[in-house]
């Protein structure tokens, strides 16, 4: 089921949490709301769920073509997985999952046998067969997360909403569960929106990424688009590591509020044995204990520090030494210029060879 939110605003007291935000989610997509804390992503999710009401005079929310702007939480039929799972602590796993079916009006309530069967199916779906009689307190974090998911799915929701689904998990479990959730989503095909503050999670998991900042949406696009074609300095800085070139380049000067960026993996260290060409820099540190090598470099003319990511094989070939002077080439740069309306937008994405020369 598609979701259409139009012009949603929300105040908490005098604080603006959402400023006229609009969002479309295509049926069956897995969408990430990503942004720093306080950007309004969780508020947007809770408004979609009906757990918060948007400001009275703000816009509308539709699920497919049904307006749900003023529908109660009960009537929205959304599946919600809370950040800390919100499992009913005094009920067994099976009772938790069955809850949504048990509270239905008698006329709509499935029989006990049907409920039991549905619970078994769901336990199988989240790979927790045999855990039905445990209490939430007897489960690990990842298991609780999956019980919460099964509980949300039991009522056959129209959309699934997840608030920081991996926030409370260990790094290892988080990675496993992330991959599993992606496959799970493909398996059930339910329109899903999740909130995260982790850009890596958003890029890896989502069909579409919604970057939020200061109560508004900054950019929407596929992970590729958002990463490669950021529409603002904020997006490029938030979505992955980046070096800002504050002093500009000789053939691309930076003026006023222009912002010039280069991603670490777009910095090429030229072979040091040859005569140094390109942007001259001094090697400061070499971090080779990782899947890629990282080199921290100080630009000779300005003392700006750049971080470069270099494949390990390349690093071995270069045989860099701290203190050594090298030449750099930026494969791709991103320049944001302020336009007349005061909005900084991307004017250049690929300066390639042109920037090679010069100090």
């Amino acid at each position: 089921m598609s979701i259409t939110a139009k012009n949603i605003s929300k105040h908490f007291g005098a604080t603006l949490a959402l400023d006229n935000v609009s969002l479309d989610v295509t049926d069956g997509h897995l969408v990430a709301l990503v942004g720093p804390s306080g950007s309004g992503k969780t508020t947007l999710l809770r408004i979609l769920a009906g757990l918060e009401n948007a400001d009275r005079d703000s816009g509308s929310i539709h699920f497919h073509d049904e307006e749900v702007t003023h529908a109660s939480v009960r009537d929205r039929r959304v599946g919600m997985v809370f950040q800390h799972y919100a499992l009913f602590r005094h009920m067994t796993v099976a009772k938790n999952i069955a809850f949504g079916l048990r509270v239905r009006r008698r006329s709509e309530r499935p029989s006990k046998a049907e409920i039991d069967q549905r619970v078994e199916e769901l336990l199988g779906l989240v790979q927790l067969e045999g855990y039905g009689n445990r209490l939430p307190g007897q489960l690990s974090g990842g298991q609780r997360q999956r019980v919460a998911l099964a509980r949300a799915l039991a009522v056959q929701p129209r959309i699934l909403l997840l608030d920081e689904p991996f926030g409370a998990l260990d790094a290892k479990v988080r990675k496993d569960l992330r991959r599993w959730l992606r496959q799970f989503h493909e398996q059930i095909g339910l329109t899903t929106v999740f909130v995260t503050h982790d850009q890596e999670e958003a890029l890896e998991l989502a069909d579409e990424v919604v970057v939020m900042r200061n109560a508004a949406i900054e950019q929407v696009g596929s992970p590729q688009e958002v990463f490669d074609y950021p529409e603002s300095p904020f997006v490029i800085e938030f979505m992955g590591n980046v070096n800002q070139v504050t002093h500009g380049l000789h053939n691309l000067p930076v003026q006023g509020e222009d912002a010039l960026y280069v991603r670490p993996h777009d910095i090429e260290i030229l072979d040091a044995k040859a005569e140094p060409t390109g942007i001259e820099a001094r090697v400061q540190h070499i971090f080779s204990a990782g899947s890629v090598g990282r080199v921290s470099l100080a630009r000779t003319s300005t003392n700006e520090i750049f971080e470069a990511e270099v494949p390990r094989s390349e690093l071995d070939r270069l045989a860099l030494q701290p203190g050594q002077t090298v030449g750099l080439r930026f494969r791709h740069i991103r320049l944001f210029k302020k336009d007349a309306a005061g909005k900084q937008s991307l004017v250049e994405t690929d300066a390639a060879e042109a920037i090679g020369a010069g100090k």
Partner: protein
Amino acid sequence: MTQHATATAPKTPRRSKKRGSVLPGFTPTMGFTIAYLSLIVLIPLSTVFLKTAGMSWAEFVEAGFSTRVLAAYKLTFGTAFLAALVNAVFGLLLAWVLVRYRFPGRRLIDGMVDLPFALPTAVAGIALTAIYSRNGWMGSWLEDLGIKVAYTPIGITIALIFIGLPFVVRTLQPVIEEIDVELEEAAATLGAGRWTIFRKVLFPTFFPALLTGFALAFARGIGEYGSVVFISGNMPMRTEIAPLLIVTKLEQYDYMGATAIALVMLVISFFLLLAINLLQRWSSQRIGHS
């Protein structure tokens, strides 16, 4: 998927009435709470203020501050203060022993500390009187030493010590539990002696809680009636506490007199309640959680 997120003209911020308003039941539960609170507590309490408002100033002073009443205040506050002080010292000791040391019967004693909360005050009153009267377990022995407890201010103080003890212990226990043993160990490695550690490291940590416990015991002490009336002897000017004076005046149908004293006591209680609230805030800030 499209989106549009341009800033529009700033709207006047509107206060959302309450967070979590999607949870049903606010209006009925709040309505019931306010109504019940008003009926049982607030409206009845207001009678004291309204009744006093109907008196002239001279009448009020005459009823609320006559020599006999002043003697009663002095006795009430004096004994309550002394009892709270004794409780502060021994309550601190008891809380420390219960938290830090393991010994047989500790759990039983920990549970029994609440006895004064659970035991009806009248029962405590007659029990203490029996112990401290001339032929009681303690009384006969103290009599030989020339100390008279029952029917004297000492007796009143003892009753108030009994009543107030749990307040100090229960306020201090969580705070002492919170103190990291490493703190003391660190002080010890720095060469501090036991007394210095207590004075410079421990005492400042639980001082706010100690003060709170003292204030709670004091507040309870000044209003106490049941446990005191039996042991006090109730002699005007000598062992007559203020709550008893209220009862005496009521029995003589002197409503004005009773109400005037009640007003003075209420105002003091309210200030104590306020002070205790502030103290508790201070105390919880000290131990690092709200």
